[in-house]
């Protein structure tokens, strides 16, 4: 059993589900949950339930929230202080950024966006070439870092002590960069890359306002709404919603593609999803050759029917 850190992401005082999956990925090790900021107490029970033996509440002098570098320095100090041999996190936008900074500061190995990790053997599996291949990697060095693709590991309860340890990092911001503003998006939406369920509208959605139909269905499943490149190019949805080669890479438990033909480039962004469902009017659409369940039908009939079944 080695000392393994798990960097916890917290949203509005709640541990993100994706972080719970990372705790599960570290199961069997001596887990140190790393919580940046003052939320440790709030999330103690949850972290303990999912296997955190220790909860390190990390604080540092200065405007930590505004400086990713300072955050990296503080976490690095904690890793050293508690002699963590492996540190895992979520391959979210902030996770990937922070882990890369820590890797640079510590000059240690980092494997990004893993779908499998073996901490003892120091081996990881990750996607190469846009989901076309998996690479099995051997990680060298005494200490290593790893971010895990959201939803690739199902959270499992494994109650542990969950002792909170306060750690005041004695670090200094190099002063290189400063977050001066965070622009919220207009609507409160689930982050696509972290959503456990995604429902995507393709070109067949025909108009921007028709995404409402998908949103209604998505709300009932706790899903995020995505779009294909064809739909984005046609102006039906913003690029931030695009799944695929030039958009977001996602790996939810359930991916429902509505009116998406199934181009290679789209699959590059979602093929590691656990279950893929396609709804398409064209029975010859390529997507039916590459998904798990298919429904031939008009999305404007099938999706509302699905919504009403979900309501029941």
């Amino acid at each position, binding site marked *: 059993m080695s000392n393994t850190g798990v960097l916890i992401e917290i949203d509005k005082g709640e541990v993100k589900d994706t972080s719970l999956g990372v705790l599960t990925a570290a199961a069997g090790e001596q887990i140190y949950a790393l919580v940046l900021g003052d939320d440790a107490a709030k999330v103690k029970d949850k972290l303990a339930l999912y296997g955190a033996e220790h909860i390190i509440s990390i604080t540092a002098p200065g405007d930590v929230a505004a400086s990713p570098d300072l955050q990296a320095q503080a976490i690095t100090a904690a890793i050293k202080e508690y002699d963590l041999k492996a540190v895992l996190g979520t391959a979210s936008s902030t996770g990937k950024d922070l882990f890369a900074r820590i890797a640079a500061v510590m*000059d240690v190995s980092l494997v990004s966006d893993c779908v499998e990790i073996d901490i003892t053997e120091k081996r990881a599996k990750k996607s190469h070439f846009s989901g076309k291949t998996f690479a099995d990697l051997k990680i060298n060095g005494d200490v290593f870092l790893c971010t895990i693709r959201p939803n690739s590991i199902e959270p499992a309860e494994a109650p542990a002590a969950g002792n909170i340890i306060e750690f005041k990092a004695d670090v200094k911001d190099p002063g290189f960069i400063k977050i*001066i503003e965070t622009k919220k998006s207009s609507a409160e939406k689930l982050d696509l890359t972290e959503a456990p*369920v995604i429902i995507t509208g393709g070109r067949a959605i025909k108009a921007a306002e028709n995404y409402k139909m998908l949103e209604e269905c998505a709300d009932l499943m706790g899903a995020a709404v995505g779009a294909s490149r064809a739909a984005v190019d046609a102006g039906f949805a913003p690029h931030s919603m695009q799944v695929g080669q030039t958009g977001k890479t996602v790996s939810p438990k359930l991916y429902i593609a509505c009116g998406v033909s199934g181009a290679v480039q789209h699959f590059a962004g979602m093929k590691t999803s656990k*279950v893929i469902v*396609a709804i398409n009017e064209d029975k010859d659409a390529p997507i039916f050759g590459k998904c798990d369940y298919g429904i031939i*039908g008009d999305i404007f009939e099938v999706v509302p029917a699905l919504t009403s079944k979900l309501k029941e």
Partner: protein
Amino acid sequence: MKIFVCVKHVPDTAASIKLAGDTGFEDSEIKFIASPYDEYGIEEAVSLVEKNGGEVVIVTVGKDDAVSTIRGAMAMGAHRAILVKTDSQFLDSSLTAKALKAAIEQDGAGDIIFTGKGSVDTESFQTQYRLAGLLEMPVVNEVSSLSLDDGKAVVEREIGSGEKEVIEMTLPCIIGADRGLNEPRYPKFPDIMKAKKKEIREIEFSSLDLDESNAMVEMEKLELVPERSGAKMIDGSVDDQAEQLVKILKQDEKVL
């Protein structure tokens, strides 16, 4: 201004990957391109230099045939290039960053170093950070907007669900470019011809005193992701189809 752009020579995203041996892939037949996010970096660098004067230098770590990608970047307006030549298909991010650092330092410091937000082959999302660490420079990745003002750069980066951070950083700095930063120009034929005459300085990786056996991450096996073999089709009336689907997702697959 002197701007470096780190460009990676990668298989076309539409190319099908065929394995060669345990850890390699066939690279002689498929089409290669500049990693798509790198193109946003090239475009940004070239337009900055067009506005402010200076030069754009491409830095690539890769095999011999990466020259074709470098020429493509030059056709977009880069002035010269440095190719750190290696024989290996996979060089881990740490070694790549060290090779880039060596090439940049040999050439003399610049004001900005652009990279893509990540390469589409190994998708490791870290080389720019390691390079920043080695060069002791600030770095921001996934940048979709940039303005320069008084020795500072103000950038925007998306952090998921449409949220954006506005970040201020000092120059010189490293910027990982993302879609949205600009619309990369398409090379024109006369520029392609001109690019053929531009200087590419080659540095042997082996001359850099970097030991490939010191890699932090080693490839043990590369395998194709199995394709799904085809959908189980759900038939019946629309109502039946919806009902069956919900049942399958809840009871069989347990994903709802």
